[in-house]
């Protein structure tokens, strides 16, 4: 699940993730607030409740303030759902990409989270 202050950013990232994973995993964006920039706890609740049952969910946020909405949303969830969601403290785009790819390859939640966290140190521009 992607939580961004920008609905466009969230949707765009979901689109990219779907292409990278060939539609093999459930990906959702709970981004923007009422057509404006911002985040909305109720949209997050809805997105989480719509995720496939019995499956684990990795959540990504863009800014610290998105975490406030996420935390509020989490408290509104049934306990069974709460235990399936993990907020991953990684960069939104690179973390979500790493996580989505690992998940689509059948990785465990541990592997998914580990890869996403390692994305913090990803260097794209370095030349060996």
């Amino acid at each position: 699940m992607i939580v961004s202050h920008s609905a466009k950013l969230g949707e765009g990232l979901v689109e990219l993730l779907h292409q990278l994973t060939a539609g093999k995993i459930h990906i959702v964006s709970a981004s923007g607030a009422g057509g404006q920039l911002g985040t909305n706890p109720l949209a997050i609740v809805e997105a989480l409740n719509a995720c496939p049952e019995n499956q684990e969910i990795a959540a990504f946020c863009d800014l610290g303030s998105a975490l406030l909405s996420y935390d509020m949303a989490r408290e509104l969830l049934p306990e069974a759902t709460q235990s399936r969601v993990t907020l991953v403290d990684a960069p939104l785009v690179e973390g979500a990409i790493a996580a989505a790819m690992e998940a689509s390859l059948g990785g465990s939640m541990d592997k998914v989270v580990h890869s996403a966290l390692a994305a913090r140190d990803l260097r794209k521009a370095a030349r060996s």
Partner: protein
Amino acid sequence: MRWPHVICVKPHDREGRGADIVIQKTIVVGGSEGIHARPATELVRIANAFQSIVRLKVDGRTVDAKSVLSIMTLAIRPGTEVQLEVDGADEEQALAALSKLLEV
């Protein structure tokens, strides 16, 4: 073998088990979308299906093709020349499968 490839022979290791052979193939990436499309995850998936070590060399940089994070750092577009390097018991099959994926 139908495709041109370079065979690189590694020196004998310390236990004297004999020379190891790494096979390499230079391919031009095909397709219209480059590595951000389906092939990125497929590449990692296929590489992981084989026992062999699989490396991709692009523009002076070598990455482990079995690693999601490594593949994410690559800058590959259609027409980019890459070198596939494979070493292991199933290296021929790995090379064939990966060439097929990337050249399409």
